[in-house]
């Protein structure tokens, strides 16, 4: 049985758009950060789907590097969130508006 590649790509587009919506709507900084991870995962799925289509390893290599960078980014980002919570004692993104005009 054959599953068309565009099924995978549309699933990836659905996940990416839910991630974008969550990024814009959520007010908790940790949830905003999690929606970024969701978008990264959606893009990884389309990389793997294209790797399957072209029968190339490079798509999967890209996913590997994205995973490495995402892990590093998660560690630094969560450290920033902890530092922010110490300074402002809030997790609401609307309360962190020091650079707003």
């Amino acid at each position, binding site marked *: 049985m*054959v*599953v*068309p590649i*565009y*099924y*995978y*790509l*549309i*699933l990836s*587009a*659905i*996940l*990416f*758009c*839910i991630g*974008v*919506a*969550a990024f*814009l*709507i*959520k*007010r*908790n900084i*940790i*949830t905003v*950060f*999690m*929606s970024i991870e*969701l978008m990264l*995962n959606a893009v*990884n*799925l389309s990389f*793997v789907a294209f*790797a*399957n*289509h072209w029968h190339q*390893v*490079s798509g*999967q*290599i890209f*996913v*590997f*590097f994205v*995973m*490495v960078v995402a*892990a*590093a980014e998660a*560690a*630094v980002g*969560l*450290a*920033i*969130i*902890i*530092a922010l*919570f110490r300074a402002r004692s809030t*997790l*609401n*993104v*609307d309360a962190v508006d020091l650079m707003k005009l």
Partner: protein
Amino acid sequence: MHLVLFFIFGGLCVAGALNLLLQRHPINSALSLIVVMSSLAVLYLLLGAEFLAAAQVIVYSGAVMVLFTFVIMLLNAGLEERTRGSKAAYIVGFPGAAALFALLAYMFLQNSGPLGGARLGDYLVTTADLSRVLFRDLLLPFEVTSLLILVAILGAVALARREH
């Protein structure tokens, strides 16, 4: 079989992502994100990426999400409150995301013919294939990532440390 598995785990992915969007407590969002990542690992297996499926489970649903739940519990995050800024985000966010999805879906459906299909077990990238490229052709980028992770560890420790 392939189609059935795709729809089961694709449906789980979408349900988990929607639950992340709809839940108001961060710990519920984090747990639904784990569902999304684990089902994505199954989809990777269906696409013949066995190493990435294992790495997805270990790195994403294991390490990264444990870090997230740890920080949520450390900071004792409660329900998110509704504030002024969220109204504009509601007005722009949903139509914007829907428009983006419509654009992407139109593009993929337009090219659905040349894209072809994936057959189960037709194309399998083993760990040996992957490591042959990674450790021979891309050795320098691979080593640079280790430096990146070292810098990230140092940065995380420096940022999260309590100042005296």
